[in-house]
Structures are given as C-alpha cells and as structure tokens.
C-alpha cells in the first residue's frame, strides 16, 4: 500500500482541497498495482528536486505497428525498479467519447491485468491513455484490446486518432454528423494510423459548428468545421420571448455581431444574412430562437499545429463549403492529394501547415488541384513581390539566360 510503502510528504499536499486529486488516484491504483508505489516515489523525488526523472524516448511497440506506444524508462531505476519500464499505450477512443459502463469495465479489466491501472481519460489528442506498463505486457495488452474490439491510436509520423465534438448525438447546432465522419476517417486510414509513412504527424478534428468545441482550428492539420450556406432559421415568437425575459437584444446580441448585420427595433429582429459570417454568437445567445440554416455542410481548413518549430499555426480555409453528404468523399479525395504532395515534398518533421508556408499557398493549391478563392485569405498580399509565371510574362530573347 502506498501509505506504508512510500513517503510522499510533498505529494500529500495535493490531496487537500476541493478539486479531485490525481495523487489520490495514484494512491487508489497503488492498492491493486504495486508499480504505483514506485511511481509515487519517483514523482515525490521530482517534487523534491523540481525535475523530471524519465529518460528520453524508448523504442517499443506492438508487432507490425509503428505507433500507439510511448516507451518510457526511469532514470532512477535502482530506486524505483517497478517503473524502470513505464510505457503508455494510446488506445483509440470511440467517436465522441461515448461509453457504456460495460465498455469502461472491460477497459479497466484489461488494464488492471496488464498495467498500472492508471489512465488518462483522455489524452490531448483524444486517445484513452493506458499509463505505464512493461515491455512484456505490450503485446498481451494489445491482444486483449483487439479481442474486446479496441485498437491502438497513433504516435510518431502517422495520422493520429481523429476526434470530434459530440455533434448530432447531443447538439442542435451540428451541421454535419461529426461522429460518423470521425469514425469513418479513422477506419479509412487504419494503415496510415498504424504504420508511419509520413514526414510527421497528421491530425484530423471534426467540429459540428463554428463554436469548434473540439478546438480543431487550433489543434489539427485538417479541421472540418460545420457551417451553413442559407439563412439563419429564425423564430420570431421565441425572439420576443427572450426579450420579454429580459435579454437586451440590441446590446447582447446585435452589438456583438461581428459584421453588425443584425437590427432590432424593439419588436422585430432582422438579420442581413448576406452579411452574416456564421460566427454563431446570436445563435449561442438565443438557442431557442435562432438556428443554423438548413443548407448544411462544413468548411475544410488546413494546417494547425503547436509552435515547434516555426511558430504555432491555426488552420486556414481550404474549401469554404462542402455539403454534408459530400464531406467524406471530398475529404478522401483531397486527403489523398495532400498526403501525396506532403510525402513527396515535406521535409522530415515538417507538418503540412509548415510545408504550405514554405512553398506558398498558391503552389500548394496547384499541387492538390484546387483553384484559389478569396475566402482562403484574410486579405490579399500587401507586398509587390509577385512570382509572375512564365505563361503570363512573355520573356523575350536576349542576351540574358
């Protein structure tokens, strides 16, 4: 038992206070898994020394896959032999992170059998993280997982586990079926998920509307964000009700509209839908009165990533609108072309967003066969350094080269 086995003076401080404590979780797990005592011990050491005690990397995995396991070794194995190996498995979550009690228990059973009993529900990319086991247990864990219908997620230079917002399962604003798309992308690209063949990682995230509850525009190489093309659906009676209940429609709604395309005369709300940029604000404030239009689909954006190493990127518009029922096909076709170009020209560890910046958006569009549209840019160029192409320029003969 943790309480007997290890002294955790510092960590014990983190059992106090109203927020649920991860230290308590580790201690709970240590009741059934002795490795957790050593984890506590090493963590306490880190807290004393203000320094991590894990070695760099480690190359382990399950047979045939190039990802899904993060190898991890202690740099003080003599002190904490039970965490000398402490690898994690990334288990691909079900779309939308829905579970039944049974499914959860199945996962618990497997992980108690083979590992520390510690998890992250979930990892930042969306996977179920099985936190800490030994090399010998990897293959058996994998066998039990697949038998139970689960498979590994990604790590290394692969497509990563796609994720999505709750979407049509529980949200009235989902402009397409995010969970279905997420599931189908995951299934379509099983090979790309498990066998590294890219210059670097590639992430998909599917959000049902511009609220982007899965942070796709900030965190995925390919962001699919629901939107609509026609007019906002408006229920005037419900608008009146909000007003009657005290909502200041002018101030709270109209004044916050980014394009100021809404007018409220005290009785009637008028939206100039031609000017609306589908930001969702008015809908968010009055969900009973306003809803996205009926012609639904998504905007496809490309290139988000964290800052390493050229600076963080947000995704940028690639296709302004794809109807909901054409999304999967369009994405498959597009993704094929993107991956082909990226695999051919991407440098090692170059994310697709960085590649686009390096070669220029226009060249990237050429390569993947898309026409430039003004929706792709916040503004046209302001510098005069245009690479006019040969077809446009008519170079004359001369003594030049």
């Amino acid at each position, binding site marked *: 038992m943790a309480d007997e086995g290890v002294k955790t003076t510092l960590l014990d401080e983190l059992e106090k206070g109203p927020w*649920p404590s991860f230290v308590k979780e580790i201690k709970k797990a240590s009741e059934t898994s002795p490795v957790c005592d050593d984890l506590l011990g090493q963590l306490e050491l880190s807290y004393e020394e203000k320094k991590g005690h894990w070695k760099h990397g480690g190359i382990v995995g399950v047979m045939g896959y190039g990802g899904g396991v993060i190898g991890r070794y202690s740099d003080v194995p003599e002190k904490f032999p039970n965490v000398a190996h402490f690898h994690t498995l990334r288990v691909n979550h079900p779309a*939308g992170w829905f579970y039944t009690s049974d499914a959860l228990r199945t*996962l618990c059973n497997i992980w108690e059998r083979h590992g520390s009993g510690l998890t992250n*529900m979930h990892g930042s990319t969306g996977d179920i993280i099985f936190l800490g086991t030994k090399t010998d247990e990897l293959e058996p864990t994998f066998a039990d997982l697949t038998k139970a*219908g689960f498979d590994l997620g990604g790590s290394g230079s692969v497509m990563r586990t796609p994720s999505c917002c709750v979407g049509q399962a529980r949200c009235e604003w989902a402009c397409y079926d995010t969970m279905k798309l997420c599931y189908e992308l995951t299934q379509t690209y099983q090979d790309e998920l498990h066998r590294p063949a890219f210059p670097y990682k590639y992430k998909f995230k599917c959000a049902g509307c511009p609220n982007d509850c*899965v942070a796709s525009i900030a965190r995925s190489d390919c962001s699919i964000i629901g939107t609509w093309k026609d007019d906002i659906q408006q229920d005037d009676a419900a608008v009146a009700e909000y007003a009657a209940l005290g909502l200041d429609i002018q101030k709270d709604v109209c004044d916050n509209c980014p394009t100021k395309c809404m007018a409220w005369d005290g009785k009637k709300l008028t939206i100039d839908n031609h000017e609306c940029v589908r930001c969702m604000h008015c809908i968010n404030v009055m969900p009973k009165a306003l809803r996205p239009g009926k012609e639904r689909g998504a905007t496809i954006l490309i290139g988000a990533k964290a800052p390493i190493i050229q600076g963080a990127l947000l995704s940028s518009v690639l296709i302004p609108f794809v109807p909901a029922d054409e999304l999967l096909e369009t994405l498959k076709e597009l993704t094929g072309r993107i991956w082909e170009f990226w695999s051919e020209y991407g440098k090692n560890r170059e994310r697709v967003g960085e590649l686009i910046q390096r070669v220029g958006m226009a060249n990237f569009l050429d390569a993947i066969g898309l026409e430039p549209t003004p929706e792709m840019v916040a503004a046209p160029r302001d510098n005069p350094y245009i690479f006019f192409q040969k077809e446009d320029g008519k170079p004359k003969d001369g003594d030049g080269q």
Partner: protein
Amino acid sequence: MTTTPAPAKRITDIGPPHYEKFLHPLIKKNYGQWKYHESVASGVLRHVAESGDEIYSVRAGSPRLLSTATIRLFADLAEKYCGGYLRFTSRNNVEFLLDDRAKIEPLKKELLALGFPVGGTNNAISNIVHTQGWVHCHSSATDASGIVKSVMDALHDRFTHEDLPAKLRIALACCLNMCGAVHCSDIAILGVHRMPPQISKETLPKVCEIPTLIASCPTGAIRSATYDGKPSVEVTEEQCMFCANCYTVCPAMPLNDPENDGISIWVGGKVSNARSAPKFSKLAIPFIPNNPPRWPEVVDAVVNIVNVYAKHARKYQRMGEWIERIGWPRFFELTGIPFTRYHIDDFRYAGTTYARSTHIRF
C-alpha cells in the same frame, strides 16, 4: 523497437468500436434531431429534441489522471442513474446522460460526496486541458497535474458557478511542444526552460545523428565540433531560446534544470469563431519558478488575472476580446503585471506585432 512474440492469429487495424454501441437509446432515437438546449443548473444541461424528448447531461470535474477504481465508480454511477450511459468531454470532464430529471439531484449529491464537483458548463471555468509533466514525460519543464490541481482548487467556485462574463478556458502544457495545445487559451500555463542544452559529450556520438541535430535548431545555435577526437557539437548560448527542439531529436541535449525551469503565463487566446476569429494567447508573465507541491505564485497569478477579467470584462467578452477592447497597456496596468523586454516579440512575425499606429490611451 522491441516487440514481444505475438500470438498466432493477431487482430489488427480494426479501429475503435463503433460509437453507436455506446449511445443512450434516447440519443440514438433523436440523433441529429435536437432542437435547442438550456442550462438547468450549473453543470446540468437540458437538450430538447424535435420529438419533445429531453436528455439531461450532468457534468463532473475529473483530474483526468484516473485510476481504474474511479472509472469503475463512474461506471457504477452511470448504471445507477442513467442506464450505464456516459461520455467524456473534449476537456476531460465526465458527463452522465439522464433521461429522468428526477435523478439529477441524487446523482449530483453522490458525485459531490465522492469529491467530484459538478459544473464547468456555460460561463464557468471548465477543466484545465493538460499534459503529462513529471508523471510521464521526459521533456517537461514542470509538472502538469500538480499545478492543475492547485489552480483548480483555487478556482473551484468558478467551476461550480456560471458567473463569468464568458467562457474562460485554461490549458497547461509542460513544455514548448505544447501537447496541451495551450496556444489558443484564455489563460495558458506553459512550462519553459531557461538553460541551454547541456551536452552529454560521452553519449552524443552514440545516440544522435549530428547533421539532423544541427538542422533541428531554428536559430542555428548548434555547430559541429569535436570532443575527444569524436564528432560532437557545441552550442552558442546567446543564440539559444530554449525551445528544446534539439533535445527532441537528440537525447544527449537535455535542458532541464531545477532552478531555471519554470512557468510562463499567456492570455487572451480563443478557439471558437463566436464573435471574433480564433486568436493565439499572448505572453503575460515570462517566468515564475517551479515551486512544488502547490506552485502558489502560479496560482496567485492565474487567480489575479481571472479576477481582474471577471471584474472588468463586459458580458460575452472572452479574455482576448476584453483585452482588445481595453488595450494591452491597460491589461498590464489593471493586473499589475510588469511589462518587460520579453513581451516584445522577436520571432519571425515580430514586425507585425509592433504598435504601428498612434492609437494610445493615456
């Protein structure tokens, strides 16, 4: 990669289970047919379908790092109150899906008794998206879970109450790799190094490819050198900005250091397209030393920013929208955070961040 012998008939490439298996029958029935939602109480949402059906979601805070024991607990609760149906959110909270309004209060009571606060909806502070820290990563400049716990303890009331001007999203990443994707958060807590890589001269030639290593440095601080007659590298310290990219590709270049590692705080990012376009977080506090187990200076800094925001922002203004309204000088004035040379960008887009107008408040 070391793999252990696999059983004869291995199952691979099956992907995750189909989500439909896990959907509450009422959700399956009304899939894509939701009409509107409203807040029932803090942490409790009511979604109403075109059919008139209603589903209630009760959201509980989670430390994310969960023992199977706790997961079993959640499973038991789900079974007891909602037919075994639950989900986790994109911010690692757990949501119980109920079709019976009467069961909300009992569930809440039980959750609270077990130490799981209910909240995080609407204009509350939700869970902190975070990463591994000293619990599992080799790369960390700080711990993750310990800071999250300390900050959420202090912000607990902001989780259980929906009384901020708008949503306020906090995220933490324990190094510049930013697995916590903190770069677009209202408040971002980011572990930073301040010590150039300390080259392990002995191991370097054994474990690293030198050309790859040299190429990895964005500032060109790494040059080839020889050590004991063997090829190695040296680092021009003035050129190092501690990104640790060299360490990612070469284990012989560790940067971590008890005195020089610590925390930076960033503010004003957002992800949603609501009102304004998504924005990056900007530097508020360049450095706070690591002070485990409870990082009091970090907690104070975050709480201070939250309080100033809560007091001054207008309704529906996210952190970044508020700061854009009042201007950055005023943000520093109101929070009392000193403005330093480190706040002035000097990376590739630096020129675009200088104040190129005379719009100044005095």
